């Protein structure tokens, strides 16, 4: 067994305390019981709303939703534990991790960090238990990496707010009870807590995806959505609000990508051991071993990087640029590992019998969302040179 666990070659378990291990183990069991047996089916036929609701409730029971937030029914774990949970979830599927990331780190975090006491009381306990699902609307059809130019607008009408615009690529949108929507106002960008049953709000789902098929992706259409004055998030103004939420979610991805890569490598090690080519196991060929060794190196480096960032975050010393380094490296390397694993699995690798191409396809989305690789390169470039090269 030891020879098969690519994450234990460096003994990285010793970096975790008992509580962190217990949380990781619990999520691993959750994924083994509730995700792994169904994920190929979800991927083949796309995830339906009932399944998402069921999954959210199960995740809520465990304490996964908003697990790193304090109070309002949230578990209040440390950041490393949250990262490890993301790692195990994404070892199941990036789409399932996305459900939890968006709920906890984007929708719940926005309310928890920038909401009024009334907003927190109204939404957070139900979202923590998984009874209520949230989404986060920042990206628009024409504005991804440059959200400051967004077209969605909130205008005052008496004391009410009226929202018009379209948001795109919104995880959980169609199944959400509440949407955090960012919009231009006369005072800059503000966030709004939008109950999805408000007249004028609709969230058609985006189909024909080749990636994140075990996740609901939607468009949000806001057509004269009228909200009371207290729908605005009082503590957020300007882009700093949504960007700090994204930084939370991105932190989870740094760990999550390691999980997807680990799952690929696990499947590949087993396959290479059992598969015979030219009369001997595929794992006994030098080229196979070279690939396995290189992938294991990158996997472990990625995990160490994630752990380092996790410890910094728990020390409250984590800089967003460091998260950019983590996301850029770990998603890029995870995608590389998934593709390399596919070459070892050869034709079998393209099926849903094995997880590798599913993970690779998912990671194409992960590479882009929460800050594209190119944007993270520019963030790091700016930190190094002092020159902003974004536009």
């Amino acid at each position, binding site marked *: 067994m030891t020879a098969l666990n690519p994450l234990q070659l460096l003994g990285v378990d010793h970096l975790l305390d*008992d*509580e962190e291990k*217990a*949380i990781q183990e*619990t999520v691993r069991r959750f994924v083994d019981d509730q995700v792994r047996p169904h994920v190929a089916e979800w991927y083949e036929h796309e995830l339906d709303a009932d399944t998402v609701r069921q999954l959210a409730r199960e995740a809520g*029971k*465990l*304490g996964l939703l908003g*697990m790193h937030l304090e109070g309002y029914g949230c*578990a209040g774990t440390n950041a490393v534990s949250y990262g490890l949970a993301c790692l195990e979830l994404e070892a199941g599927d990036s789409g399932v991790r996305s459900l939890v990331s968006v709920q906890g780190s984007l929708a719940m975090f926005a309310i928890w960090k920038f909401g009024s006491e009334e907003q927190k009381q109204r939404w957070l306990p139900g979202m923590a238990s998984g009874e209520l699902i949230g989404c986060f609307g920042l990206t628009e059809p024409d504005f991804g990496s440059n959200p400051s130019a967004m077209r969605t607008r909130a205008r005052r009408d008496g004391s009410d707010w009226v929202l018009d615009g379209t948001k795109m690529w919104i995880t959980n949108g169609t199944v959400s009870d509440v949407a955090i929507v960012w919009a231009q106002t006369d005072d800059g960008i503000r966030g709004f807590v939008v109950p999805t049953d408000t007249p004028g709000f609709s969230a058609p789902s985006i189909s024909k995806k080749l990636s994140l098929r075990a996740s609901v992706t939607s468009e949000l259409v806001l057509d004269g959505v009228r909200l009371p004055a207290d729908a605005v998030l009082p503590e957020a103004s300007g882009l700093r609000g949504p960007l700090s939420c994204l930084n939370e979610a991105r932190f989870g991805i740094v760990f999550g990508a390691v999980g997807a890569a680990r799952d690929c490598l696990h499947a590949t090690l087993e396959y290479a051991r059992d598969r015979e080519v030219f009369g001997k196991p595929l794992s006994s060929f030098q080229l196979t071993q070279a690939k396995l060794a290189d992938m294991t190196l990158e996997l472990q480096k990625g995990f160490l990087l994630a752990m380092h960032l996790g410890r910094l975050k728990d020390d409250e010393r984590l800089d967003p640029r460091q998260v950019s380094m983590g996301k850029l490296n770990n998603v890029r390397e995870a995608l590389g590992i998934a593709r390399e694993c596919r070459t070892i699995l050869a034709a079998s690798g393209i099926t849903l019998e094995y997880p590798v191409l599913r993970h690779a396809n998912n990671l194409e989305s992960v590479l882009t969302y929460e800050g594209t690789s190119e944007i993270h390169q520019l963030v790091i470039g700016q930190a190094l040179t002092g020159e902003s090269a974004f536009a």
Partner: protein
Amino acid sequence: MKIVVLVKHVPDAAADRTFHEADHTTDRVGVDGILSELDEYAVEEALKLAGSESGEVIALTMGPEGSADAIKRALQMGADSGVHVVDDALHGSDALATSHVLAEAIGKIGEVDLVLTGMASTDGGMSVVPAMLAERLGFAHIGFVGEMSVDGGTVRARRDSDVTETVEAATPAIVSVTDQINEPRYPSFKGIMAAKKKPVESWSLADLGVAAEQVGLDAAWSQVQSVTKRPERTQGEVVTDDGDGGIKLAEFLASRKFI
């Protein structure tokens, strides 16, 4: 209602399990251990019963230092406190000695209404400790229970064996439960974090008034003389269907007395 649930720390069946060379006892120190999976059902049932009657659940184990992990797991699932009987002299204890020590420990815990156990440990697998314990404590004993309820001072239980019986006993009682009784919960994150702050007491043999010579390998009624590793599993027999596949399968099953 006060419930003691017996938990055992056993070597993880997923890892290599070994015996000590010197005395052929199970190696419990150098291996990864877990809470015996069958005990999780007992913990779950205790939590359900205690939850509906605002009761108290105490996880009790006996074993070397590392076996406190079994208690920790029970606490993470939701038990209120733990007792760990740990003493070097316990090494190699058989079921008789184990039941003696656990009976003393339960006596020291005080008035209890129920003692819940799994149907067997996943390492020793003897299933005799609950009955021995009942005899020593003078408690009623219901074994292999697939469904149970407690009403006032009465335990009502469905016992599954060759026949299915519904039986009743007055508390205090010892009930061993099967894996049919419930679906053990995962420890929630809140449970995991709360477990750290729950009290766990360590008791030695002296604390229980048990003499060292009454327990351990030297006092055991039987000792293992030798250990042989099970032969590697061989490749299964492949039956090719040339029109008589069904007959061949039936013959094979008959030869193994399955049919």
